[in-house]
């Protein structure tokens, strides 16, 4: 029997009739067509599937659909507001922090969660916050640079209007 789910996705109410054995990642990608969140290792090791669940960054490949009812999910698609990129996304593009791009959605989510909590984190704190997100292209330095640069841009009023 299908499972009826009501949740908030990127600020909008969403309803889906899903296979109950699915994970949140599978629901997002297959039932809600939000394919920005990536399938990586599927075992909680890579961070590619990170989303905000009730404002906390978690791995959507490890969240069972049954436990999503009534909860709020923010995916990488939810970072843009009125078509305008989040300062983090702008800085990732400007500074070459994304190469193949597969890890980028998860990293943007983890970085956003950090900046929402602490608007001016040290480089060590950024490194710690992103320590669950693997990137096989960049060597991480550009990613750390981009998050640091976005702190400045956010401080200059680059925060998006909600």
């Amino acid at each position: 029997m299908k499972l009826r789910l009501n949740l908030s996705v990127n600020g909008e109410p969403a309803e889906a009739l899903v296979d109950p054995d699915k994970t949140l990642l599978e629901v997002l990608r297959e039932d809600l067509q939000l394919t920005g969140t990536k399938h990586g290792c599927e075992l909680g090791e890579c961070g590619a599937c990170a989303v905000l669940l009730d404002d906390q960054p978690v791995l959507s490949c490890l969240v069972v659909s049954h436990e999503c009812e009534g909860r709020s999910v923010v995916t990488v698609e939810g970072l843009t507001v009125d078509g305008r990129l989040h300062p983090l996304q702008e800085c990732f593009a400007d500074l070459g922090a994304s190469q193949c791009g597969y890890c980028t959605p998860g990293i943007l989510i983890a970085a956003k969660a950090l900046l929402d909590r602490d608007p001016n984190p040290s480089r060590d704190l950024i490194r710690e916050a992103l320590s669950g997100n693997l990137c096989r292209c960049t060597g991480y330095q550009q990613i750390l640079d981009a998050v640091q640069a976005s702190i400045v841009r956010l401080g200059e009023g680059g925060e998006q209007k909600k």
Partner: protein
Amino acid sequence: MMRLPSYRYRAPKTVQDAAAWLAESPGDTMLLAGGTDLIPNMKRRQQVPSTVVGLRGITELSRTDDRDGLEIGAGVTLTSLVHDERVHARYLGLWQAVGQIATPLLRNMGTIGGNICLDTRCTYYDQSFEWRQAINFCMKKDGDTCWVATSSDKCLAVSSTDAAPALIALGATVRLVSATGTREVALTDLYANDGMHYLTRRSDEILTTVTLPKADGWRTTYWKLRRRGSFDFPVAAVAAAARFDGDRIVEARIVLGAVASRPLEVPAAAARLAGQPLTDDLIASVADDAYTLAKPMDNTDFELVWRKKTVRSLVTSALRELRGDDMRAARTKLARHPLLVIS
């Protein structure tokens, strides 16, 4: 793609309901807390419960109470513990252990109860279904042979919990609740040195609470060896706790992690520390005891003879730190984790 197997999901609101539902079919029902251990294991068909009882709706499990010591609900997330100032101030070894579990994303999900009950790990077990099928499976799941030591009649999978050694060193107890009653056991008695039957928890019991005694006069520390500074299970670890009277130790506990199928206490070493000042010679001989006791097997990361040798240096570092030596440089070098430097 690895899909979850089919299962029936139930979401109790109280521990009593959870215990009653667990008792209906304890053999093929599993408890789901953070999901960071069970869900990957289900995807790889290492654990295939027909019913999953999700505990996240039971609010009493996420409570932390200041009693004589600290009562931590089994559902408290690892992130909450890292951010709990009481844990940092009073139980530093636990804070260091929990802060080095997995990653921030996984700590947001994973719970203290889950880390205590973490399935034992092994190179021949933590693999996809097809990989395990190709070796005709192993003793721990679906097979007969322990591929780590083919003559072994017992599974040698490794205890990989970071929290448990620290909690045992701190003298923690845990509460187990079933439909028929409640019992409180010392955490050390929750474990057995058997990779398959590593918990003495009955299959109809729920671990609900971890209780730490008062921290009065105790100093604790946790040292962990792992391949990556960012994210790995321990391949050798030591938790040490000692209560001092001046520069003499009154009472001490040393617990090794990831070198057996259970957190391994070193009672002889602890006994020899009692009443003594922590001299270099005493530290060296206690580290030798731990080295002798540690029996790492060739079923996790790193070369096993070297892993065994690291136990000696981990114990030495831990005891020197308890003595008051400045071990920050050594800790940072090992952990590659600046936030864990004791300030």
